[in-house]
């Protein structure tokens, strides 16, 4: 029974397209996150939501728009895809959010390739 799931697992698309990645957690956590892991394996936070409210919004192009319909789901929509968007995108969740000793549980990742 998967705790944090993401779809799709792989996404190959052309430059300029718009795409979405979906994330769901069944842990009952209040906070969800989106991370980007680039080719150099650097894991960088993009957004976090606590109970559907945006908490962290790092310096991310506004082509990226997160949407949280409820606290168990956090989707990521990307407009006008660029080559530099190619990366692995991880969704994560944690019980409370905000750092501290709050363990984050990660999904399996979505490998996005922009051609």
């Amino acid at each position, binding site marked *: 029974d998967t705790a*944090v799931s993401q779809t799709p697992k792989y996404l190959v698309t052309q430059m300029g397209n718009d795409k979405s990645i979906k994330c769901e957690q069944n842990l009952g956590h209040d906070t969800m996150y989106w*991370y980007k892991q680039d080719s*150099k*394996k*650097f*894991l*960088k*936070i993009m957004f976090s939501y606590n109970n559907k409210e945006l908490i*962290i919004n790092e310096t991310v192009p506004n082509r990226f728009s997160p949407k949280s319909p409820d606290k168990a789901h956090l989707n990521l929509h990307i407009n006008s895809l660029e080559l530099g968007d190619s990366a692995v995108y*991880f969704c*994560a969740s944690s019980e409370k959010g*905000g*750092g*501290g*000793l709050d*363990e*984050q*549980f*990660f*999904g*399996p*990742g979505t490998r996005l390739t922009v051609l």
Partner: protein
Amino acid sequence: QKEVEQDPGPLSVPEGAIVSLNCTYSNSAFQYFMWYRQYSRKGPELLMYTYSSGNKEDGRFTAQVDKSSKYISLFIRDSQPSDSATYLCAPNRDDKIIFGKGTRLHILP
């Protein structure tokens, strides 16, 4: 100076060796220190955490924090091929967690 720095490796050691993975950080506000392990093509998972300075042991793993020098270490005793993964240090404070780039570890059978 970056907030968290780790040598990316790869680090290759023979099975059974003691492994030392290290991380430095610049922000003295960090109070909690976590290590995440990431297997190839998987998401990271929490391995250990400590609060403030000192050592914490969990089986073959020992996490060590020296806040005075802003230095974090993870020791793995009796290393196994199944320990081959990327290890990310993650110091954090109350509002945010920062991940290091990770050190890729390869245990040779």
